[in-house]
């Protein structure tokens, strides 16, 4: 029983990471109509930007988060302006190819600048709290923070989407592009904000992953498959669905280790995704097919 509870906690931590990535993937898909394959490497680059910031100023690991989010938001807008904007007018699938190329460019940049070895934000072991009233559940402070901060970020995105003009414009564009454009929504600004949010959340996911495990140039790429699985599960183009999808995928991946070798964890995400594609491709929350 306590094993299951423990895995549930790990699952929710992983789910928080995946949700941060999947919200961005889903929003970008909703606005620009393409699957953003560089999103995993946005996570990686974000995590490393955070590392660069805290090691330059000798700060503690959590300072990596705001630095990474701001840095990655800027990088995302920059990449959109320099590359994606130029090919946006052609078919969306060309953007898909470009983002695939961008994924490799970002990863090789990370390798060139920071090398290919594992790195960590802070050395040493963190002692978990032992919660006796929960069957001896062990909870690391970092894990608690990851879950709480993602909750906060999700609430922030929610407030933005429901209470600001730009947020409403974004939802309108995602629901019905043509109608939104003829009613005079500033498309370029909405797209820019989409990249700001997508980039910042990807960076948060990367920093969480880095704090939970370690930093490595392929950390984001290997997480991309579960992130996409989460986005599809929640209904692609639906940011709220992405949160549910992230949690379901995260918990399933961790729980699966009770039954199958841990090496096959990504296979669980993949299996859920394939099952979803067969049974209900529009996702739980009816996204864009």
């Amino acid at each position, binding site marked *: 029983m306590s094993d299951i509870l423990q895995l549930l906690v790990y699952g929710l931590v992983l789910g928080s990471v995946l949700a941060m990535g999947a919200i961005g993937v889903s929003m970008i898909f909703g606005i620009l109509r393409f*699957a953003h394959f560089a999103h995993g490497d946005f996570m990686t680059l974000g995590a490393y930007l955070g590392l660069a910031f805290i090691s330059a100023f000798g700060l503690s690991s959590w300072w990596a988060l705001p630095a990474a989010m701001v840095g990655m938001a800027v990088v995302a807008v920059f990449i959109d302006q320099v590359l994606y904007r130029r090919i946006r007018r052609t078919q969306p*699938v060309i953007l898909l190819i470009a983002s695939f*190329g961008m994924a490799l460019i970002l990863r090789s940049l990370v390798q*060139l600048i920071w090398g290919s070895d594992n790195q960590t934000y802070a050395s040493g072991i963190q002692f978990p709290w032992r919660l006796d009233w929960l069957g001896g559940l062990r909870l690391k402070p970092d894990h608690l923070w990851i879950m709480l901060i993602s909750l906060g970020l999700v609430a922030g995105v929610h407030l933005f989407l429901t209470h600001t003009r730009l947020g409403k414009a974004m939802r309108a564009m995602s629901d019905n592009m043509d109608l939104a454009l003829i009613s005079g929504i500033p498309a370029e600004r909405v797209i820019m904000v989409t990249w700001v949010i997508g980039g910042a959340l990807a960076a948060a996911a990367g920093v969480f992953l880095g704090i939970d495990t370690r930093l490595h140039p392929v950390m984001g790429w290997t997480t991309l498959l579960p992130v*996409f699985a989460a986005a599809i599960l929640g209904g692609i183009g639906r940011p709220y669905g992405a949160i549910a999808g992230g949690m379901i995928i995260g918990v399933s991946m961790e729980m699966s280790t009770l039954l199958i070798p841990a*090496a096959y964890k*990504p296979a669980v995400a993949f299996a859920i995704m394939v099952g979803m*594609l067969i049974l209900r491709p529009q996702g739980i929350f009816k996204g864009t*097919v």
Partner: protein
Amino acid sequence: MELTGIASYLVSFLTFAGIYAVLALGLNMQWGFTGQFNIGVAGFFAVGAYTSAILTTPSSPDYLGGFGMPFLVGLAGAIIASTLLGLVVGLITARLRTDYLAIASIGIAEMVRLFVKNEGWLTNGVRGIAGIDRPMADTALASPFAYLVIVVLFVAGVYVLVERAYGSPWGRVLRAIRENEPATAAAGKSIASFRLQAFVLGSAIMGLGGGLYAHFFGFLSPEAFMPLYGTFLVWVMLIAGGSGNNRGAILGAIVVWGVWSGTALLTDLLPTEHATQAAALRVLLIGVLLQVILVLRPEGILPEKPPRLTSRKR
């Protein structure tokens, strides 16, 4: 001495380019003709390579093998295995937007890699399979040059096949699906079934490429594929050469393989302690090359030229 060195480099260069040309032709069937976005090329490639290796190597206690089948049987096995994989993936994704195929296909490539890495009884895991012979290994014909001839013959065979497919009514339907899906459906064509056929045929060709690779390189391991780079290179080749154009696919394979090998010559000049950085630099350059092509010349070196419709006989 100098001359034979260059000659043997050239033979090896052309053989690799030929193997990549097979992969690019397979991808052209899926992406260039039909507009299906498969970025799991490495998965189909690996399945083909491992199937052929397992069928042809002598027995070993470490992994399943010892069938000792001839080269051509190995290649046939490679084609069958990748066809089956293509069929499974195609059946799931043929009805969906191509973005879903793209996402599912990285999943497939990843699953194949995980499987190869973890199921040591079948594939010898990370230690890999060594000693995969070239065809006619005991005869004088086992030279690298003879293998180049074999690869060229296969490239030519595949080229003739896909070129005929392109000009046929079947190929016309594929292009129609790519250009305008609703109109093709309105004309009474089953989109899903044509997509599935093109996808499976393309996968089979990639499997053949994998088999050819296994017998040329002689050693397979999950990391030797550099799965992502394999997929990525094939994509850059097809887009640089001109997607939709089969000659473009072959030309792209030779040119991009030349650029890729050329960057290797350059980065070899760097001191060895920077070896990993050098590899990253090469990927970076190829990535930038792709973006430049996409922005400046998205139609590639040899743009697609659909066959002119012959005027109807009166």
